[in-house]
């Protein structure tokens, strides 16, 4: 329809504008009972020629992209760019986002795409609308980051950080936080570079040092703020802690790690405890503190590889309850099939059992721990198949396991024994 008619509305005794005469039949169409997927390229009634062209173009682009005909898709893009000039407001937001995503995808795969093209497209799409300005900034900086242009990436994020657009920027504060976090990460990367070059040269330039420190300051200010918000901030925490360690601010580092691990408002994150443990280990803390750090990790991820260290810590301690706990830890590790073939874990188990056997009530302890496992442990570890597999691949493992069968499952006759097939009745 002309703009005229759109603006003024159709007149009363209308020309039977039956461009879509097929649909105006006297029998009404029934509504489908199944939920329908809304296709992107849907023809609407009263579609102008312009919209029809754009829809056809989009279909061609989509077809070309799905079949990886990137050159063909790129050939249709100049024609599709007319869509950005569309005056109808209903689909403006969606079409801009569509255009942005399609163009970046094509650029990723087209053989002739260069960095300038990316920069160009990102800049244009950024300024085409306010709702996705921040997202595009972030994506742009990611791309620059991945291709090694750290400084440019940082510049992009700085610009994005200082963007204000009334209600829009207020509504997207989460994205702003993300942008701040990544900018700090980039500061950290630059700081790392500087530190590396700094350590390489013997000549210590005061200016360089200042530079490095300023990056540290910029990064740390932001990171401190960011890390107060609940979330999963693993890479950021690591970078912050590394910087703090370099400047020997151990209290702050410890505080940050502890907060990250033990703050209840944060989502449960096993990595937090791992980082804390690793930090403590680096700084020669007492065993007791180390064990405390690993306690929660054990609850969260019983199959974690650090459980082996945990069990060794518990083994070394003097308390009886710790020994029992060690047994529990190891058994829980072996509950998981991934540790099934690991010799070290079985050896540790053997060591624990041996130490336990020094006590009198060791049988009760063992049977108590194995009570829940009696039904399914044999199938998990001690079948004939495992016997043959282990004796072929890992005889040492076979030996260790075989010695433990009687202890762990005393009243079961298992088919697992060193080198022989036993007959079970």
């Amino acid at each position: 329809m002309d703009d005229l008619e759109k603006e003024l509305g159709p007149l009363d005794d209308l020309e039977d504008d039956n461009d879509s005469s097929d649909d105006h039949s006297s029998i009404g169409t029934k509504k489908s009972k199944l939920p329908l997927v809304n296709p992107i390229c849907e023809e609407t009634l009263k579609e102008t020629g312009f919209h029809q062209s754009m829809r056809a173009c989009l279909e061609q682009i989509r077809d070309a992209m799905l079949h990886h005909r990137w050159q063909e898709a790129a050939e249709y893009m100049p024609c599709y760019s007319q869509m950005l000039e569309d005056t109808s407001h209903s689909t403006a937001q969606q079409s801009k986002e569509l255009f942005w995503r399609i163009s970046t995808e094509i650029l990723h795969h087209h053989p002739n795409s260069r960095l300038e093209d990316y920069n160009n497209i990102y800049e244009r799409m950024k300024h085409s609308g306010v709702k996705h300005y921040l997202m595009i900034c972030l994506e742009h900086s990611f791309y620059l980051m991945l291709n090694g242009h750290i400084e440019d990436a940082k510049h992009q994020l700085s610009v994005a950080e200082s963007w204000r657009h009334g209600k829009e920027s207020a509504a997207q504060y989460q994205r702003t936080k993300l942008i701040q976090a990544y900018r700090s990460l980039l500061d950290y990367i630059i700081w790392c570079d500087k530190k590396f070059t700094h350590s390489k040269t013997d000549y210590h330039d005061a200016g360089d040092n200042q530079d490095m420190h300023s990056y540290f300051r910029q990064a740390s200010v932001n990171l401190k703020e960011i890390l107060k918000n609940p979330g999963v901030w693993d890479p950021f925490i690591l970078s912050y802690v590394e910087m703090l360690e370099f400047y020997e601010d151990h209290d702050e580092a410890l505080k940050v790690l502890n907060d990250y691990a033990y703050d209840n408002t944060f989502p449960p994150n096993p990595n937090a405890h791992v980082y804390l443990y690793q930090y403590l280990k680096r700084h020669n803390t007492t065993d007791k503190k180390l064990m405390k750090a690993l306690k929660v990790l054990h609850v969260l991820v019983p199959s974690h590889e650090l459980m082996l260290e945990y069990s060794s810590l518990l083994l070394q301690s003097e308390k009886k309850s710790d020994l029992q706990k060690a047994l529990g830890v190891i058994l829980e590790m072996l509950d998981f099939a991934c540790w099934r073939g690991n010799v070290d874990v079985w050896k540790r188990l053997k060591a624990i059992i041996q130490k336990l056997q020094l006590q009198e009530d060791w049988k009760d302890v063992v049977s108590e721990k194995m009570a829940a496992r009696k039904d399914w442990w044999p199938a998990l570890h001690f079948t004939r198949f495992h016997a043959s597999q282990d004796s072929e691949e890992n005889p040492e493992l076979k030996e260790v396991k075989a010695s433990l069968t009687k202890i762990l499952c005393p009243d079961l006759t298992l088919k697992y024994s060193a080198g022989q097939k036993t007959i079970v009745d």
Partner: protein
Amino acid sequence: MDDEHTAGYREPCAQCAAVDWGVSDEGRFYCRSCHNVIERTREVVDPNFTPGSTRISTISRGSRTKRPERGRQWMICEGFQFILRNQADALLRLGVSPNFKDDVLCQLWRLYLQKSRQAFTHNPVTSSKFKVRGLDSDSDSAAESSVVSASETNPSSAAGSNAESSSEWSLCSGSVDAAGYLSARLRRTRGLMSMTKTLALIHLALIWSAEALTLSDLLRLVNEGHVPYVNAYEDLPDEMKLEGKDALIFRVEDVPSHQRVHKEAETLLLFLQLPAFPPISRQSLLHPSLLSLRYLMDANLPDELHLWVCRLVERTSMADETLHVSDRLLRPVLPRYDVQTAALIIVTMKLLFGLDDHTEWDLSNQTGDQDDTGELFNLRRWYRLLQAALIRAQQRRVHDIARKQWKAKKPLYGNKSEKCTMIKKKRIAEQVQVCFERLSSCPAGVDRVDPSSFRFCWGNEDGADGPSLHQKKLDGVMTLKLGVLTPLNSAYWHPALKACKPRSCSSHYSEVEPTLPRTFVWLLQLFGFLLDVKPAYLYEEVLKVERRAIDGKTHQRKKRRTRPKTQAKARARTQRGRENKRETFN
């Protein structure tokens, strides 16, 4: 080639008077025949320019006020006059006789202006709304009186004299009467001009001058860009500035359909109260007898079929009737030559081949068996050729539709706020376009093809859609009965009719289509593609032709289809009978 850079700069060179420009490395224009360098340079667009960057690179003291561009006052009908003239000129360049523009179109336009009281009248429709901006009250009254007295003079000269009366051009932009043009009162009279109406007016003029351009041809030329329509306002002279409400009138993003333009033309006919059209003789290319020849050629059907089409034309007495546009009192009927002719061809094929998904293939098998020389027309072979060509052509059409450029180089803004956003959007779109054009090394838009009356090209040359079947004989479907050539097929099917509401129902094609034979449906699609109309539209026309053929008398315009199937069959049997029907084709 530097054509894209010289951007259509067509001034002759000062030294050698040739028009052959190139662009040198520095970006300056030079004449390729005499190497004369001129001052003109190519504008370079830097794609890496980021207008949104926050850094200020220069601070300069420029003048704050911009000199406003001068324009003159103009009325909407003047704008349309220019547009119509450009469209007519385009048609003349394509080969239409000058008589069409000078004698017919001009007169129709003047008649229209008079009837709609925009000019040539003592009582102009917009006199009360005529606001002259920037002039004092003296010239105000002068302007009014000059319009009022313009009974025989050219309306544009009235405005011209108005401009002369004021010593300088005033700071005018936008037409004078756009607001009035869009007022409810004037809209209700439905006399006012729109872009669609320009096409309708041209169509009427073409029919009157009996040019061979049918409506579907005209619309095809518009779609391919040979006749200005979309963004036609760009060719208006510079001093006519378009702004504001003008956008609503002149900006179009749609080429109207065949049906719509036809209805507009009928409305216009009623409005203009034209006398009877000059008769269309049998020698005219608009007459079904000759127009069918063109469509038969395009559809690669044998020339012998034309004989049967003409017989059908006689039988349906369309030979005479289409000669006149009947000027009935209430609603004049404008015949749709192209659609009617296509329907005639379809009905002829239905008569000869049956087209019920069985007969035609049996006949084709028979032909294939008995034909040794390959001289006979075989429907199966024809179908295969056409289907392949049709699929290719449809894909090409989708490709062209997808690549069509709709947006103007000089966009038209509705109001000031829209202007800023539109300028910004346009800049973004252009920069993105340049980026992708460079990436894919493929400019936007469709390759311009030379206009042609035919969609397909049949023959043995390179680039043909397939071998030509025009010379094949129809002996395979004919037989000699009592010494007269008659079709082998003796049955005719017709879709079931039923009662329906006369006003609210438009087309039942979508309901009926699943029950129709596939060959028939395919044929509708083929001719729908050739003419660029919907198959439903064509189907209605086929029904009308069949009704006339069965009735045998002058077509009575009834919108109701109340005769059930059995009655029609019975009538056919009692009145004519099968034997008779065949005999009348002799």
